[in-house]
């Protein structure tokens, strides 16, 4: 399954791109509207791009009234990414989305461009789990001391799956002034530099939880997607590559089939967790 990384595609301005994915993940929705951070918001580096968008979004009221009906009209499977500043925010958002015809909710507990929620991942996931029966994915940051522990916490609190990873903090300086290129200074680094970091996080979280994982980070080709699957991802998402190549979903899907077949796998998912060898871990489940 190939998705987009949250915040890397607007299905309403590029419906054909969204329709070429297996599911469309929305930009993170917060309880109140957010205009986002002051420009400059993006900069290219030699190893990736840094961004500081700041979760610009219309807020849950307008999202439900205006955005979501238009997304559903596109006929794509919709995952809604939600974010907030505390467990209560996440619970409110999930409760309001619970009766909507969306395929999954992704809890963004890892945006590097807003103050990180202070509550632990476990508290947020548990609060969301308490108000919705929807499929719940927790999107985790790789910039934690122990991503396996964070993944296990999400699993114990009732997450159905994990999304790994969000961007990691990065800084780009202007060559001439040596000042930050981005308005807010530091931003989130994405692109090729994130690829080994995502692989490590997926590998570790799979070993720690056995939960389904959407692998995200620097995927540009089908071979990159196959590596994430081998590390323990059951799906993967495209992020920065979409900016340069809106046809990436179709291309990557074809490449994935081809490289999997060339390596002797009947399907790409036959390579699932191949990097681990041995039997799969027993999935961690919610603690009653």
């Amino acid at each position, binding site marked *: 399954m190939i998705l987009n990384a949250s915040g890397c595609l607007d299905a309403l301005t*590029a419906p054909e791109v969204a329709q070429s994915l297996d599911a469309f993940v929305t930009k993170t929705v917060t309880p109140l509207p957010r205009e986002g951070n002051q420009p400059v918001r993006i900069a290219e580096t030699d190893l990736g791009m840094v961004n500081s968008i700041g979760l610009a979004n219309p807020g849950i009221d307008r999202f439900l009234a205006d955005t979501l009906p238009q997304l559903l009209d596109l006929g794509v499977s919709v995952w809604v990414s939600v974010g907030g500043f505390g467990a209560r925010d996440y619970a409110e958002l999930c409760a309001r989305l619970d009766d909507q015809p969306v395929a999954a909710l992704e809890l963004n507990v890892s945006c590097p461009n807003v103050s990180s929620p202070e509550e632990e991942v476990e508290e947020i996931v548990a609060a969301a789990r308490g108000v919705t029966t929807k499929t719940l994915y927790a999107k985790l940051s790789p910039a934690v001391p122990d991503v396996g522990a964070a993944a296990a916490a999400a699993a114990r609190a009732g997450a159905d799956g994990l999304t790994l990873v969000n961007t990691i903090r990065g800084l780009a300086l202007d060559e001439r002034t040596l000042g930050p290129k981005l308005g807010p200074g530091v931003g989130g680094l994405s692109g090729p530099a994130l690829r080994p970091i995502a692989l490590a996080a997926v590998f570790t979280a799979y070993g720690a939880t056995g939960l389904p994982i959407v692998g995200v980070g620097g995927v540009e080709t089908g071979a990159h997607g196959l590596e994430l699957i081998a590390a323990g991802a059951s799906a993967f998402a495209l992020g920065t590559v979409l900016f*340069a190549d809106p046809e990436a979903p179709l291309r990557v899907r074809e490449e994935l089939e081809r490289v999997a077949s060339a390596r002797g796998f009947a399907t790409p998912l036959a390579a699932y967790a191949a990097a681990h060898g041995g039997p799969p871990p027993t999935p961690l489940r919610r603690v009653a």
Partner: protein
Amino acid sequence: MRRELLDIVRVEDIGPYRLLRLKRGRLESGIPGQFFMLAPPGRLLPRPMSLSLATRTELGFLIDPVGPGTKALTAVVRGERLNVLGPLGNGFRLDVERPLLVGGGIGVAPFPYLSERLSRPPAVLGFRSEAHAEAAALIPNAEVVVEPRLVTEAMPPGHDVLACGPEAMLRAVAGLAPGAQLAWEAPMACGYGGCYGCAVEICGELKRLCVEGPVLERAA
């Protein structure tokens, strides 16, 4: 939204700028002021460029090689190919009675095409040096000013202004011509609404320039 690998036909020096001529392929030329995303070889992200010239067989882009992306774009040679996506965004409204083109620096890039579509209206173009002012040769009926003189000192009154240039110039032009159509610029990662990177503050609001612009009409 179409993306295609286009053949480089020719790269010409125009003062410090370079004019990239590409085979047009199946891409539409769009409305003047719309832009295309050109993928520089070896770089992660494409760069937004407004179209300078459109013929039946070619598309031309005037580029100022100032950073790694624009330098990579202008280092290409005949026989190589570039990925081009477009046309994108909203161009200039062409139903104007007394058009006047006002441009500064590399902001004159869309004017050769715009001038042709508006039947060669008068233009006032400002540059930072005589060398940069060589680009004015691409635009007919142009009065050229070179710093320290500014375009705003040479703008005749009573026209429908269509402007493109540095932000300070656009704000000054809007002060003199409140109904002016202004083509803005911002760093963009995608050009089609996905990245939210190109937000610019216009009249107190952050707008996503690629889908709401790049040409915006300043509120009266």
